[in-house]
């Protein structure tokens, strides 16, 4: 099962002087659900286009199912199903007709095609709407029809570009579960791109964080947080009231300075910043108890104290902020 189905080595794509994808190395194993995560314009779609041979890489190599999509795109397209971002159908044709068209483009006979289409329509729950023109479909229905279309050719890999875009939250859950179920049942490798970590982590075995054309980190959530928070893995949030201390601290900056001063004795405290009403204290170790003691002893009121677990948002913002900083440097 450890067979690599997608291998990207040193992949680079440049548009003029703009580098959309920068020396990307990525390996996806068979049967895996991989989430490519990144903000808009990070190069996710470009990477996907290169996987399918729809655009040529500037340098580097791509292998999908052992085939090079640059020289042999047709073979790759036989094995890879691709659901583009914001998929569209011929709105003057019904869902059934649209799928028949795709099936016939894949050189299926009429019998085979119609059986397959009926089966898939049932799988994605569109049997009742099959005869309706796709112009009357809702966004979620279109997306499900897209998934059915992708599965027509019995793909080994399916690539979904922003599959949850524009669907309501309940629909998203349903849709992602559908993908996960199909992947598990049929052993299909899934690569999906998204800018929403919350949605993606529910079904992905691994996640790659992709910013500014670079893959910053990959792995499951645990690995990601370890890689990311190596420096100061603990954040303690504290709410401090100054009213009773008799101190006159006009602005946030002065308050931060004051908190820093009283925490100077605590080992491991790295930085203090004020975020809304709360102070965020970054530490190299779990110093919650000592911090509480120091604050209370200083005479200020401690009305809130919370050791933060690194959640998805943290990971996400951390990485994306990192990406933005990189951009600015360039």
């Amino acid at each position, binding site marked *: 099962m450890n067979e690599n189905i997608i291998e990207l080595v040193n992949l680079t794509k440049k548009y003029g002087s703009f580098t959309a994808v920068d020396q990307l190395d990525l390996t996806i194993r068979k049967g895996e659900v991989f989430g490519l995560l990144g903000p808009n314009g990070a190069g996710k779609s470009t990477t996907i286009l290169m996987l*399918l041979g729809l655009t040529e890489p500037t340098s580097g190599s791509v292998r999908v199912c052992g085939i090079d999509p640059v020289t042999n795109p047709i073979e790759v397209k036989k094995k890879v199903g691709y659901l583009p971002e914001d*998929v569209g159908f011929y709105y003057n044709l019904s869902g059934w007709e649209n799928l028949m068209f*795709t099936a016939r*483009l*894949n*050189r299926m006979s*009429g019998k085979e095609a119609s059986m397959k289409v009926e089966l898939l329509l049932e799988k994605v729950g569109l049997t009742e709407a099959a005869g309706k023109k796709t112009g009357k479909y809702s966004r979620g229905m279109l997306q499900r029809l897209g998934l059915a*279309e992708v599965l027509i050719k019995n793909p080994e890999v399916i690539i979904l570009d922003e599959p949850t875009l524009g669907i309501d939250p309940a629909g998203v859950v349903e849709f992602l579960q559908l993908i996960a179920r199909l992947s598990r049942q049929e052993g299909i490798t899934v690569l999906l791109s998204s800018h929403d970590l919350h949605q993606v982590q529910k079904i992905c075995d691994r996640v790659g964080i992709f910013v500014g054309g670079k893959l910053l980190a990959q792995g499951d959530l645990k690995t990601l947080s370890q890689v990311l928070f190596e420096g100061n893995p603990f954040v303690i949030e504290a709410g401090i009231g100054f009213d009773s201390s008799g101190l006159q601290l006009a602005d946030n900056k002065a308050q931060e300075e004051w908190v820093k001063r009283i925490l100077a004795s605590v080992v491991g405290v790295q930085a203090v910043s004020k975020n809304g009403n709360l102070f965020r204290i970054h530490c190299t170790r779990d110093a919650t108890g000592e911090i509480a003691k120091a604050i209370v002893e200083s005479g200020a009121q401690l009305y809130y104290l919370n050791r933060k677990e690194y959640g998805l948002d943290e990971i996400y913002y951390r990485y994306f902020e990192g990406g933005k900083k990189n951009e600015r440097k360039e």
Partner: protein
Amino acid sequence: MKEKNNNLIGRIQQYISKTKGPGFYRADDRVYHPFNVIVQKEISDHVRSWRFIILLVIISLTCLGSMYTAMSSIKETIKPNDPEGSFVFLKLFTSSDGILPSFVVFLGFLGPLLGISLGFDAVNSEQSKGTLSRIISQPIHRDYILNAKFMASLIVVSVMFFALGFLVMGFGLISIGIPPTPGEFLRIIIFIFISIIYVAFWLNLSIVFSVKFRQPATAALSGIAIWLFFAIFYEMIVDLIMKGLVPPTGLVTEAQMINFENFRLNLLRISPSQLFSDATTTLLMPNVRSLGPLSLVQVIGTIPGPLSLTQSLMLVWPQVTGLIAATIICFVISYVSFMRKEIRSR
């Protein structure tokens, strides 16, 4: 009246949608080549579209109108001792009563509109619908899409022109009672072929625009702009140039005059509509002996008589080749730019 029209068109559409549609929907054992599947789908799209129904109505009306004028004026146009006397049947296509233009002129005018309207949204509408990226991710060669679209439109146009041509012939046969000679029949068939090539040129031109421009409206307007330019302004511009070039009469010899006239004609022949009208008039009016000016020396002693079909064909061969070449050039441009285009979802 309006309601009645709506009813009729509604019923036509209902009838069309009741029919089974292209063959690839059938659950049979046949495996179609993907190219044929796209062609089938495109043809069915064309035939069911409002656009095509409207165009069909316009062109059928044109056909009827010009046939009516031809019938009513055909008596006057046949003169005794006319070298064309033996080509009564061809008059159906070329004669007019001076109020409505003849069938050929109408076709020369409306053909471009037909071509442009069948092609202007070939690629860009697929892109804006979000279907293009879906189709090219299927295991087919990318050029199938473009070729199939061209092929489908060409088939639609061919069927339509042959049907109309034969209808005119049939009605003419009934009303004037003189059957066409084999020569006349062949001339009409070749005329229809040339008309199809002419429409194919405009079709390809509009496909080029549909690849280049993202907005179908822009593509359509660009096509129409070029059509209007050649139909209205081009001749004026050529005349303007010639006015500047040609010295006043009296200062030039006959030979020079002929050279200037030839130059003017060659300039005009850059326009595809000029090529088309040259080709069709020669074919349908067998007494046309030359498309350029003839000097008095050349004319003296000639016996007025119609050219044979092969002679007429030889006369228009350059025009036909020119039209085909222009069509191919447009096709190559659209082909190259489509193949190199990076297709993203909408």
